C-alpha cells in the first residue's frame, strides 16, 4: 500500500526527470516553430523577418522534400522487412541443436555494436569499392562486371549497410522469444502430424507476433533518423537519391545555413514521426498490460 508519505516522496523523485524532459522537448520545439516562421539565413545575420508559412510552402513543394520522404520510407520499410524476415530465419536456425551455438551467437550479434561511421566506411571502402573492394574481386573472379554500388544503386547500398547493422538486433530478440516457446506445444503438433511449415505458421509465428512488434517499434525510432551512414558514404547523392529527411534538413541547416526552411522541415519530420509514433506507442502500450 502506498501511503501519503510515499506518494509525496514519489512525486519529488519523479520531478527532475519530468521537468528536464519537458524542457528538452518544449524549448527546442518552440524555437523551431518560431524560426520556421522567419526568413532566417545564418549568412545574413540581422536580416530576419517574419514570413508566415512561406518556409513550409517552400519546403513542402521543393522536389527534394518528396524525394527525401520517399527515400526515408523506402529505407525504413526495406530495412524492417529485411531484418525481420532474415532475422526470423537466422533465429530459427540458431534455435536448433547446433554445435558451438554461443560462438555463432557472438558472430551474429557483433554488427549491432559497430558504430555507424565505422560500418559505413568499411562497407564503402573495403567491400563495395568498385575497383579494389572485395565484392568487385568476387564478381571479376566469376567473370562478371564489378558493380559501382554507390553510383549505380546508391539507396540500395545504404539499405544493405543499415540492414546489416540491424539484422543482429532482430535475430537476437526473435531468438530469445523462440527459446521461451513451449517445446511441448511444438512436439504435440508434430505428433499430430503437423509439418514443419504448419507448425511454423500456426504455432511459432503467432508466438513471435509480440517480439516482432517490439522490434518494429525500436527499429523505427532509430531508422527514421539514419544519418551517419549517409553522411560518410554518399552525402545524400548522387543527386537526391540517398537524401532522407534527416539528411535534407541537415543540409539545409548546416550546409546552406537556411535556418527558416530547415526549421520548417524539422517540424514536418516531427509530424511524420508522430504519426508513426501514434500507432507504435499504442502497440507497446497494449504490450504493457499483458
Amino acid at each position, binding site marked *: 500500500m502506498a501511503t501519503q508519505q510515499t506518494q509525496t516522496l514519489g512525486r519529488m523523485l519523479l520531478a527532475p526527470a519530468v521537468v*528536464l524532459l519537458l524542457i528538452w522537448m518544449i524549448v*527546442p520545439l518552440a524555437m523551431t516553430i518560431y524560426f520556421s516562421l522567419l526568413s532566417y539565413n545564418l549568412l545574413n545575420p540581422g536580416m530576419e523577418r517574419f514570413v508566415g508559412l512561406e518556409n513550409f510552402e517552400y519546403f513542402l513543394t521543393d522536389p527534394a522534400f518528396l524525394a527525401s520522404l520517399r527515400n526515408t520510407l523506402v529505407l525504413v520499410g526495406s530495412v524492417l522487412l529485411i531484418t525481420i524476415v532474415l532475422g526470423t530465419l537466422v533465429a530459427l536456425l540458431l534455435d536448433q*541443436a547446433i554445435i558451438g551455438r554461443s560462438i555463432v551467437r*557472438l558472430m551474429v550479434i557483433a554488427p549491432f*555494436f*559497430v*558504430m555507424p561511421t565505422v560500418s559505413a566506411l568499411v562497407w564503402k571502402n573495403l*567491400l563495395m569499392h568498385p575497383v579494389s573492394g572485395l565484392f568487385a574481386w568476387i564478381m571479376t573472379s566469376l567473370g562478371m562486371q564489378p558493380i559501382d554500388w554507390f553510383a549505380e544503386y546508391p539507396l540500395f547500398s545504404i539499405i544493405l549497410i543499415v540492414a546489416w547493422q540491424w539484422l543482429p538486433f532482430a535475430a537476437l530478440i526473435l531468438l530469445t522469444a523462440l527459446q521461451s516457446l513451449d517445446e511441448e506445444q511444438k512436439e504435440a503438433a*508434430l505428433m499430430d502430424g503437423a509439418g514443419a511449415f504448419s507448425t511454423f505458421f500456426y504455432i511459432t509465428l503467432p508466438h513471435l507476433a509480440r517480439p516482432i512488434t517490439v522490434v518494429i517499434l525500436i527499429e523505427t525510432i532509430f531508422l527514421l*533518423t539514419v544519418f551517419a551512414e549517409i553522411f560518410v558514404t554518399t552525402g545524400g547523392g548522387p543527386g537526391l537519391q540517398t537524401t532522407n529527411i534527416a539528411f535534407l534538413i541537415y543540409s539545409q541547416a548546416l550546409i546552406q545555413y537556411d535556418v527558416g526552411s530547415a526549421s520548417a522541415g524539422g517540424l514536418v519530420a516531427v509530424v511524420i514521426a508522430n504519426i508513426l509514433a501514434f500507432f507504435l506507442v499504442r502497440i507497446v502500450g497494449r504490450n504493457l498490460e499483458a
Partner: protein
Amino acid sequence: MARKISTTHTVVTTAAAWLVGFLIFFPILWMILASFKTELEAFTTPPSFLFFHWTLENYATVQERSDYLHHALNSLIIAGGSTLIALLIAVPAAWSMAFAPTKRTKDLLLWMLSTKMLPPVGVLVPIYLIFRDFGLLDSRFGLILVLCLGNLPIVVWMLFTYFKEIPKDILEAARMDGATIGKELIHVLTPMAVPGIASTLLLNFILAWNEAFWTLNLSTSEAAPLTVFIASYSSPEGLFWAKLSAASTLAIAPILILGWFSQRQLVRGLTFGAVK
C-alpha cells in the same frame, strides 16, 4: 519425451549456422585483417586473406598522426558522463514509478517514450544555435548534456522494467519488521536493484558510444569522439584503408567486447522486458 535429433540434422544445421554467422561477421573480420596489412596489400586485388605480411605499423601511425587516444578519451568521457547523469536522474524517477505508481504513471511512461520519437533532426537547428550562443559547440559538456537528455527516456524505461520485477512482498515484510525507509533502501532494495542498474548503465554506455548524429553535428576536433574521428577518414585525403581499418578496430573493440558480455541484458533492456 524429448524428440530424437538425428546426427545428420545436427551436422547440417551446425554447418548452416556457422556459415550464416561467418557471413554476418565477415565485414568486421575483413576490417580487422586489413588493419594488419600494409597500405599496398590492403588495396591490391586479388586480396590476400591470411598470407600477407602482418604488421602493427598502422596502429602506431593512427595514434601518431591523429591522436587516437584524445578521441577515445572524449568518447569515454561523453558516453560515460551522459550515462551517469542520466542514471542519477532516472533512478529516482523509475523507482517512484515502480514503487509508488499512480493512475497517471502509465501515461507518463508513454509520454517519455514519445519524446524519443521526436527526431533529433527536428530540433537540430535550435540546439545548434543555443550551443553556438553559449559556446557549447565542440565541447564535451555540451555533448554530455544532449546525449544524456536524448537517452533519458530509454534509461527511465529500462530501469522501470527492472524495478517493477522486484517483488513488493519483500518490501512489505521489511516494513512489518519495522524497517525505516532508509534501512529498507540500503538493505533490502538496493541489492536487488543493482543488477538492473548495471545492465542499464552498460547498454546506455554502448548506445552513447556509438551515437553519431549529435556528435557529428556538434563537435569538430576538441570534443570530437571516435565516431567523428572515424568519419574524418571519409574525406578524399583520408583514404588510407589499412589505417582506417586500424582506427576502426580500435574504436569498436572495447564496445564490441562490452556488447558481447551484455547481449542477454540487451534483449531485456532494449525491449523493456516485453521479450524474455
